[in-house]
């Protein structure tokens, strides 16, 4: 199984000493949507590599809380994968703009989730229902969201 076939082909071209060997990455870089990327574990289409004929698990949230959590997780995932890209390409303005856009949406989703279902970080504890950090479920428990 040749996983490297899915890696960007430029990395296997001759003439590495030539500056043009490193084209700006966005030239052939298409992104998945946050939901698609989250389900695959990869936001970058040019880096995606399938194993055998396995398809990514489709996450079908059943409750409103699950739906809210998946949206937040998907957006957080997309921001994280952009974050790793931006670490190496901080000058890529279109990606910075996308990150900013996701950041604004994420703030909203966190606020909505925490007001409904309890704090995600200890500082997100609203204290209206006491110190609820301690009695909302832990993520390793079965049937957690």
């Amino acid at each position, binding site marked *: *199984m040749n*996983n490297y076939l*899915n*890696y*960007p082909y430029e*990395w296997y071209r001759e003439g*590495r*000493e030539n500056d043009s060997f*490193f084209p700006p*990455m966005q030239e052939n870089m298409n992104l998945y949507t946050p939901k698609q990327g*989250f389900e*695959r*574990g*990869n936001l*970058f289409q040019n*880096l*995606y*590599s399938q*194993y055998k004929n*396995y398809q*990514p*698990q489709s*996450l079908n949230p059943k409750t409103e809380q699950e739906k809210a*959590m*998946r949206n*937040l*997780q998907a957006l*957080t*995932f997309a921001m*994280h*994968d952009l*974050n*790793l*890209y931006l*670490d*190496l390409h*901080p000058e890529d303005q279109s990606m910075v703009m996308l990150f900013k856009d996701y950041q604004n949406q994420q703030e909203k989703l966190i606020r909505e989730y925490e007001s409904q279902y309890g*704090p*995600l*970080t*200890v*500082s997100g504890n609203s204290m209206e229902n006491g110190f609820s*950090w301690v009695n*909302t479920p*832990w*993520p*390793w428990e*079965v*049937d*957690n*969201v």
Partner: protein
Amino acid sequence: MFKYVKTLQYPINIQKKDLRMAKYLVTQYGGSNGELGAALRYLNQRLTMPDDKGKALLNDIGTEELGHVEMLETMIYQLMKDATLEEIKEAGLDTHYAEHAKALFPTDANGVPFTVSYFATTGDPIADLSEDMAAEQKARAVYENLIDLTDDPDVIGPLLWLRQREIVHYNRFKELMEEYEKKQNKGWNNRSSKSSIPMNNRTEIRTNFIY
């Protein structure tokens, strides 16, 4: 500092206990190619990366790996929690039970305990990044072996997802290493192209490159 967020990076809900699978999966928790080793390796190497990009990338991937440690812990816990003593003996986890009961303990699939020698750090960014790239590929290969060993979709889903993260990390490390190599070669080529460099200085030039 680190701040805890009360959610997994990707959801895990394993309904069916499977002790044999728990026994295999533990290697991605505490084995030589596991997530604990990866997290500590990158968070350790980040301090001596030669530029801002390197420090940021090692910091951010290392932090993500801590989230993967939590995912592996969750999978092992959920696969084991309802097991009876009989089932534990049958799966060959009785030796684990003797020392740890149902608590988690980072070992490889053969029970060899986690050791810090798994995160060899050299202080040389090219050597460290080569190590990191190899680690990501080895972890990818082990995830594929683990996927082959189960038919439970609740287990396969997160394993496919974790495997994909290894591929992304591998590519980011590779990109960074190639940039460092390029800078290294440029430094060497620029200086040597000025010609008339005495032979006896060449070793010094070769070893004193700056990123």
